[in-house]
C-alpha cells in the first residue's frame, strides 16, 4: 500500500495543472461561499428624489415635533443613495440600471402627514419605482426601503399616541394648554368631580338639585376610572411588542468563524472527493486495476490507499488555509488539536464517499464529473436552513443532508474552530459511521463493476 501511495503522490507531483486546479478551485470556491453566506447584504443603489425643502421636514402636532429627515438619514445609511434632481431623473436612473430602485418623496409630504394627524383624513404617499430585471435585487431593495418607511410610520404613530395620551391626562387631571398663543387653564375631570361633590354636600339631601348633581358625580367617577386605565393602554399601543431574545445554548458560532468553517469544509470536500474518486478511476483508465488485483493488492488495500491519499493531501492543505484565514477571523487556536481531529475525520468520510464514486467510474473524467455532480448539491442542500422550506421538502433535504458528510463535517469543524454548540462528539460519530458505510459501498461497487 505504501508503494501505491508513493506512486500516486509522484503522479500528482507530475500533474501540476491538475494539482493547481485541485488546490485553487476549491480554495476560491470555499472562501467565496463562506463569506457570501456570512456577509450582510450589500447596499442597493437607490435613486432618491425629495421635494421637501431643507428645514421644512418637521411634522408638528400637539406640543410635539417630529423631524422626518432623521428617518431619511437612516434610509440613506441602509442603501447607497443617488440624489436625483427630479422624479423623472430618479425614474431614468432606474431605467438605465444605474439604480435598482427610485424613492420619490413629494414636496408636500410633510403637509399631508400634518393634515392626516389633525383631521384624520388623507393618505400621505411616497412613490417607489422598482427595477424588474432581477427579482432578487428587487426584493432586496424593496425590503430596505419598506423597512425605513415603516420606521417613519411607527415613529409618527408613537408621537400621535403620546400626544393623545397627554391630552387625555389633561382632561383627567386638568392643567394649562397653549392655544393660538393664549394660555388656557383646563379644570379636568377630577377637579370637576371634587367641586360638584362639594356642591352636593353643601346643598344637602333635600335640595331638588342634589339627585341631578349626584348623577354628574357618578359619571365623573366612571370617566375618571376609564381614562385612568385607557391612558397607559393607548401609550402601549405605539410599541405593542417587546422582543426578549434568548439563545438556548448560550453561545452560537460567530458568523465569520462559521464562514471559515464552511470554506474549510467546502475545500476539504472538493479535494478529497476529487482525489479519491479520480485516483481510483485512474487505476482503471490506465488499465492497471486488473493487473494490481491479480495477486499484487487486495481490493480493500486499494480502497484504503486511495482514502489515505486523499486525507494525506487534503488535511494539511485545509489546515494551512484555515490557519491563514484565522489571521483575519478569530478562531480558537487553543483547540487546534480538535481542528485536526474534526478535519481528519471529515476528510475520511469525504474520501470514503470519493472512492465509492470512483469505483463506479471507468475513467478519471467520469469520476471527476460524478464527484462534482454530487458535491455541489450536497453542499447546497446542507446549507439550506430547514426552517425556510415547507415541511415535506424540509424532511427530504434533512434526509439528504444526513446521508452525506457535509452537514456533520460543518458542525464538527465549526465546533472545533470556536468551541460553541452543538458539540463535536455526535458529528464525529456520524462522520465515522458514514466513512464505514461509504467504504462498504465502494467495496461492493468495485466487485460489481470490476468484471466489466
Amino acid at each position, binding site marked *: 500500500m505504501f*508503494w501505491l501511495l508513493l*506512486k500516486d503522490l509522484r503522479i500528482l507531483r*507530475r500533474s501540476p495543472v491538475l494539482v493547481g486546479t485541485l488546490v485553487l478551485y476549491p480554495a476560491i470556491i470555499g472562501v467565496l461561499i463562506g463569506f457570501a453566506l456570512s456577509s450582510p447584504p450589500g447596499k442597493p443603489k437607490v435613486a432618491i428624489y425629495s421635494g421637501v425643502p431643507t428645514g421644512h421636514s418637521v411634522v408638528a402636532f400637539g406640543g410635539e415635533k417630529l423631524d422626518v429627515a432623521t428617518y431619511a438619514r437612516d434610509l440613506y445609511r441602509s442603501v447607497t443613495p443617488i440624489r436625483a434632481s427630479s422624479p423623472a431623473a430618479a425614474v431614468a436612473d432606474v431605467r438605465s440600471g444605474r439604480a435598482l430602485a427610485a424613492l420619490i418623496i413629494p414636496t408636500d409630504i410633510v403637509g399631508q402627514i400634518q393634515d392626516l394627524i389633525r383631521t384624520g383624513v388623507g393618505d400621505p404617499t411616497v412613490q417607489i419605482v422598482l427595477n424588474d430585471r432581477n427579482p432578487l435585487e428587487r426584493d432586496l431593495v424593496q425590503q430596505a426601503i419598506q423597512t425605513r418607511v415603516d420606521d417613519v410610520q411607527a415613529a409618527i404613530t408613537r408621537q400621535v399616541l403620546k400626544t393623545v395620551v397627554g391630552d387625555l391626562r389633561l382632561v383627567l387631571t386638568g392643567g394649562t394648554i397653549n392655544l393660538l398663543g393664549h394660555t388656557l387653564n383646563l379644570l379636568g375631570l377630577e377637579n370637576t368631580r371634587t367641586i360638584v361633590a362639594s356642591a352636593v354636600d353643601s346643598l344637602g339631601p333635600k335640595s331638588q338639585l342634589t339627585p341631578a348633581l349626584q348623577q354628574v358625580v357618578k359619571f365623573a367617577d366612571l370617566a375618571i376610572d376609564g381614562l385612568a386605565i385607557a391612558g397607559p393602554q393607548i401609550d402601549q399601543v405605539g410599541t405593542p411588542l417587546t422582543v426578549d431574545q434568548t439563545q438556548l445554548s448560550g453561545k452560537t458560532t460567530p458568523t465569520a468563524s462559521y464562514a471559515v468553517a464552511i470554506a474549510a469544509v467546502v475545500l476539504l470536500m472538493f479535494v478529497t472527493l476529487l482525489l479519491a474518486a479520480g485516483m481510483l478511476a485512474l487505476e482503471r483508465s490506465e488499465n492497471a*486495476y*486488473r*493487473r*494490481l488485483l*491479480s*495477486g*499484487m493488492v487486495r481490493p480493500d488495500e486499494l480502497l484504503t490507499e486511495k482514502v489515505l491519499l486523499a486525507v494525506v493531501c487534503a488535511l494539511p492543505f485545509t489546515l494551512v488555509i484555515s490557519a491563514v484565514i484565522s489571521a483575519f477571523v478569530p478562531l480558537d487556536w487553543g483547540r487546534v488539536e480538535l481542528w485536526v481531529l474534526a478535519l481528519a475525520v471529515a476528510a475520511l468520510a469525504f474520501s470514503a464517499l470519493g472512492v465509492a464514486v470512483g469505483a463506479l467510474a471507468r475513467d478519471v473524467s467520469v469520476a471527476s464529473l460524478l464527484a462534482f455532480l454530487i458535491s455541489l448539491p450536497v453542499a447546497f442542500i446542507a446549507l439550506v436552513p430547514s426552517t425556510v422550506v415547507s415541511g415535506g421538502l424540509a424532511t427530504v433535504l434533512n434526509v439528504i443532508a444526513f446521508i452525506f458528510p457535509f452537514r456533520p463535517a460543518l458542525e464538527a469543524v465549526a465546533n472545533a474552530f470556536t468551541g460553541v454548540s452543538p458539540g463535536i462528539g455526535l458529528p464525529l460519530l456520524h462522520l465515522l459511521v458514514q466513512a464505514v458505510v461509504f467504504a462498504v459501498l465502494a467495496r461492493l461497487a468495485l466487485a460489481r463493476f470490476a468484471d466489466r
Partner: protein
Amino acid sequence: MGHAAAALSVESVRRRFGDRVALQDVSFELVPGELVALIGPNGAGKTTLLSIIAGALSPNDGHVRLNPSQPTHPHHPGRSIGWVPQQPALYSKLTVAENLRLFARLERVEDVDAAVERMLDQTDLRARAAEQVGRLSGGNQQRVNVAIALLSAPEILLLDEPSASLDPRQRARLWEFIGQLADEGTGVLYSTHDVLEAQHHADRVLALDHGRLVFSGSPADMDWSF
C-alpha cells in the same frame, strides 16, 4: 513436450456475467516451455480465460492449479504467473524504470533493483528507462507491459493479444523475444485473432467458441476454416 509435468492445469472452469455464459467447463494443461495459442472469435471468452488464470477474475466454478506441488488457487494462483493484458497496464506519468520498480515491489520481488536491471536489458529498454511511459510508442509500451509480467521470472506467461497494436517489425521482435522465453522453459499462453501468428508461433492451439474449448492440438491438426 506433452509428456512433461504440467506447469499449469485449468480444470472445468466456468464463468458467467449475469445471464451470459462466458466460459463452460474449460480444461487444459500447459507444460514448461510450451508455446500455446488461444484462438477464437470475438466474445469467445479468450480474455476472460486469461484473466481467470492470472487471478484478476474469479471463476464461478472450477480450478486453476499451478504445478502439482502447488495447492489449489481458485482466486489468486500466485506470482508464478506473469500476465500481459491486451492494453498496456502502465502508469503513463511514471518512467519506464519507475513502473518496473513499482510493480516489482508490489510483486514482492526479492531483489528489486536487480530485477529491474535484468528486464531493462532483456527488453532492450535501458535507453528509455528514464522516459515517461506516456511518451513511448505503442511498441515500446507493449515491451514495458511484457517486462512487468516477467519481473518475477514467472513459470507461466499469459499474453492477451500481444501483437495487436504493433507494426510488423515490432511483431517480429516480440515473437523472437517470446520464443526465447519459451526456449528457456517458460510456459507461454497467448490469445490472438491472427491465424498466421497461431500457425507460426505455437506448439499447440486451443480454440474457444462461445465459451467452450472446441479444439486442443497442434497447428497442423487444426481445421483453419473454423
